[in-house]
């Protein structure tokens, strides 16, 4: 993609990926799923997840998996609210750009 993704959009993508799993999901899987949508280096997700945790948009819990500990990330209510804001902003933004591209005359 020729367009760069800002930090807010990265947050939105991560929140969206995590919110798709009721049970929550883990670091490696989040990275894989985010990477399938936008190119982002693997080392990027840790600071993003950490910040989202700190902002209480995400929460974690540990669960045993194949005899070892695995940390799961789950979206919180405030995370869902934040995601809704991001989505709203995104739709608004893309709608404007699309309108411009499609050449509809703005008669404001």
């Amino acid at each position: 993609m020729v367009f760069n993704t800002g930090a807010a959009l990265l947050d939105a993508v991560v929140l969206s990926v995590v919110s798709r799993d009721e049970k929550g999901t883990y670091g490696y899987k989040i990275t894989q799923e985010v990477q399938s949508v936008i190119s982002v280096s693997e080392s990027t997700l840790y600071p993003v997840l950490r910040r989202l945790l700190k902002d209480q948009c995400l929460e974690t819990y540990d669960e045993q998996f194949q005899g070892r500990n695995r940390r799961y990330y789950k979206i919180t209510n405030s995370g869902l609210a934040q995601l809704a804001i991001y989505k709203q902003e995104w739709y608004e933004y893309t709608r404007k750009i699309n309108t411009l591209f499609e050449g509809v005359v703005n008669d404001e």
Partner: protein
Amino acid sequence: MMNKDEYLKELEKLLSDIDEQDRNEALEYYRNYFEDAGIENEKEVIETLGTPYTLSQTIKDGLKEQFDENIEIGDEGIKSQKYEDKNEVLKAKKKKERMDKRDKFIFIILLIILCVPLSAILHTFSGVIGVIFSILTFFFGFWIITFLFYICAAMSISYGVSLIFPFSTIISVGGGFIYIGIGFILIALGYVFGKISKWFFKEFLPKMFRWIADKMNSLLNRRLEHENNV
């Protein structure tokens, strides 16, 4: 290529200056990450995570809440304007340092070489003619030799002329012509030495300065690079 355990160990070392809880959390995350990727993807994960050093920098920036500043995510993954700027500043600094060093070398070499004719002049004033041919006067010697050849030539020719023509009490036509001949040979030699000195000062010396400066410089840089790598 290091394996997962070595990678995590190195990362732990690099994170030793941060809060213990933050460090353990980051290490736990990446241990989890390796385990979930599976042993078959270990190599690939290490490649994509980057060196332990860059990873530790990303983690630390995240802790400082600076991670979001100026980041861009494009096709080549994430890019931080901050890292790039830092990199460029470092590069520019290095380049400048090299230039400065080269200039310094040229200056030192010039100083050493300028000292040689100075000592030659001192020796000449003490009246030792042999000094002209000594190693000490080597650099400046060409000009002195040229100069002396012309003086000797003038003296020889005038003495020869004085022998042929009856100005003095001794008249020796044969001897006169020998002295005049010697004078012409000296003029020729003086001319040759003049050319040599001109070439020496205009072509050879500047080339030599540059060559020595470059050699010393590259030697020093190689050592610096070596030290940086260690």
